[in-house]
């Protein structure tokens, strides 16, 4: 395989993995706070469609990005209200939002299918760094949103592990009672993190419609939101591992396409299965190793009820 091909595949892995990365980061944050959000796919879709719509109408892709953040965040607000205040079942609430989100995005985007936006995000080489052998063109010849994603991952990791607020975020998902007992408002914090999660999912969707494709198609996430949910577990709720995992998943995507070009015997479908199989295996391995103690946030999925303290 030629070097050009390898570079091409690697670069494509990053591009393909970025929307998943945004969504996964968002989900990671939300789950760290103790709430499971299965509405990621729906939030990505509304982000994609609203981002696209605004970009077409205003000619400014950054406005589109901003709108996507808001759209994802709004949908997440509903989820937050249902799960935190009303203490509803998180699994079903998330599913409802995916359903609603996919319907809403289809509905809104009907008139925009197949359109091309004038101004989208093109590749931007970073001077100097993009000349490095192999790493250069792969990592530093991406679009602006990808660069933002690098920064975001580092920022999230820093926030989680080095700041006081991040400590409390982690504690929220482990033992909200402990956080409550030091006088911190569990409910308010969870709202914030869930909305951030939704906004990032929206951003992931916008990446699809404004950089990756770039256009709007019905159901264009093709289930990437669900992959992001799986990815968070695969990454054991850590941002750097989420980065690696996203590019792995993205790589499978990119690889499949390239392999078809070469004509390798491995079926693309089997390849595509691997990430999901890996996720299950990783989950099992983590559980076996810790002897039944999951590395997941202990309070994940359980609504916080102060009376039950």
């Amino acid at each position, binding site marked *: 395989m030629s070097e050009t091909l390898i570079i091409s595949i690697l670069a494509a892995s990053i591009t393909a993995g970025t929307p998943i990365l945004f969504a996964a980061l968002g989900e990671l944050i939300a789950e760290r706070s103790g709430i499971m959000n299965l509405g990621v796919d729906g939030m990505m879709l509304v982000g994609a469609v609203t981002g696209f719509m605004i970009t077409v109408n205003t000619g400014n892709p950054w406005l589109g990005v901003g709108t996507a953040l808001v759209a994802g965040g709004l949908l997440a607000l509903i989820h937050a209200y249902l799960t935190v205040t009303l203490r509803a079942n998180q699994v079903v609430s998330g599913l409802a939002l995916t359903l609603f989100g996919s319907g809403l995005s289809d509905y809104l985007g009907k008139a925009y299918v197949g359109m091309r936006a004038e101004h989208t995000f093109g590749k931007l080489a970073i001077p100097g760094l993009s000349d490095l052998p192999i790493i250069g063109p792969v990592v530093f010849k991406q679009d602006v949103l990808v660069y933002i994603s690098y920064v975001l991952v580092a920022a999230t990791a820093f926030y989680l592990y080095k700041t*006081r607020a991040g400590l409390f975020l982690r*504690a929220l998902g*482990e*033992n909200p009672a*402990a956080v409550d*007992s*030091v*006088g911190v408002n569990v409910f308010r914090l969870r709202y914030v993190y869930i909305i951030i999660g939704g906004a990032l999912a929206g951003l992931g969707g916008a990446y699809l419609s404004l950089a990756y494709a770039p256009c709007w198609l019905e159901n264009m996430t093709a289930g990437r939101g669900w992959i992001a949910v799986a990815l968070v577990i695969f990454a054991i709720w850590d941002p750097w591992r989420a980065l690696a995992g996203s590019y792995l998943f993205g790589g499978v995507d990119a690889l499949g396409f390239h392999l078809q070009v070469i004509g390798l015997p491995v079926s693309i479908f089997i390849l595509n299965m691997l990430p999901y199989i890996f996720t299950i295996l990783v989950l099992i391995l983590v559980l076996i190793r810790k002897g039944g103690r999951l590395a997941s946030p202990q309070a994940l999925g359980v609504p916080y009820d102060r009376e039950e303290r």
Partner: protein
Amino acid sequence: MEVTPLIRMRNIVKKFPGVVANDQVNLDLYAGQIHALLGENGSGKSTLMSILSGLYRPTEGTIEIQGEEKRINSPSDALANGIGMVHQHFKLIESFTVAENIALSQTSGSVLISEEEIVEEITRLGEKYGLLVDPRAYVWQLSVGEKQRVEILRMLYNDSKVLILDEPTAVLTPQETRELFSNLRNMADNGCAVVFISHKLNEVEELADQITVLRNGRVTGSIGRSEINQTRLIEMMIGRDIITAYEKSEPSDKEPVLVIDNISALNDMNTLGLDGITFKVRAGEIYGIAGVSGNGQRELAEVLAGLRHTLSGSVKFYGEEVVGLSPKEIIGRGISYVPEDRLVMGLVPKLNSCDNVILKEYNSEKFSKGHFLKRDAAIAETQRIVREFDVKMGSIFQPVKMMSGGNLQKLLLGREIASKPKLMIVLYPVRGLDIGAIESVHKLLLQMKENNTAIILVSEELEEIAKLADRVGVIFSGKILGEFPVKEMDTEKIGALMAGIVENGGAKA
């Protein structure tokens, strides 16, 4: 010792619906002093300290901190005022390190957490007070004693001057207890006021500078180290009530049907809950187990019901070994367990009475045929139980969580009795019940005795044991410390055993 007390609790009254937990309690805490709060369960000592540590607010009364009256509205308030409490169940996050857990106690401060600084401080405090823990270790890796040290360090890290520990030795090994005591002494010497809640007399004697005894919500006495007198303390703890002598049949010569021999088992905190416990029960006998709750009663019941693994020892029922049997098999052998948590274990709150009545026997001929349940039989049985045991409820088709405590207990007992068990283990049967319900329940138990059922009655009420039981064993730290016929029961003997004092001669250990 300071002249002005660090903390002054004056005329504290705390009322809960139906009960006065603290009744005009006064307490003075001085820096440099280890103050023990002694009393049985329900004496109000935990409630009092919960008030001081901000968990509850007093119905009446005031708290002065260093001479100034203050209101403590929450645990974080208390901590801000220099008061910290270590509970029996730790509030630590297992997957965090020690340092992270301690950092969690401070909501304000720098945006960035400097792990180095925290580690340094923890190490310094650890060395100063002898509380050695690896600050970088994960909490789940620590032993129970070490986890307790983390809780204490948390308070010291926040400059707590008043340290309250609730039954701290319950989960420690003797070695760890010794270490804890020396650490507490150290802290007191460094100017803290240490409060130590306990029901164990010899520990209190060893450690405390001042002992305040509570009984039924009131202070029955407060004495200093130099005035310690065991008999007086026991009297203050348990009272001098003469236990009414009830008619008791002669001890039978029958062979015991239940032989518990040297059973050891872990409790939920993974320390020793049962420590070689041994005793026997005969058919048609009520064997009362007296003791402050938390000394292994629940673990014992769970072992007998097949819900807990044992480390060693054997239990023979009618000659056959029952250790290792599944709960279903044990139910099949005619052993019935009436748990203390009626709505958590014994009954299913969401389901109605009929569904609850068949809970253990749904598989039997009585209630099922092939794959299906005989609904009519279940309804008939439920109606019978409701009639016979006078259970009051809206309808037998309502979820049982709507029933009052007393009626729940009657339903539960009714169900168990209806299954005609050969052995029944019943824990704190009249907890939370009114007088009428208590009478009914007692009558039911005596009725079972007439039916030749062997009964193990675990209770905190000595009066109840005196009334119902034939023999009584006192449980302490997972062992039966002393056992004798109820006829020979007197408060002093029992009180001493309940507090862990084994006399030479007289009581059999």
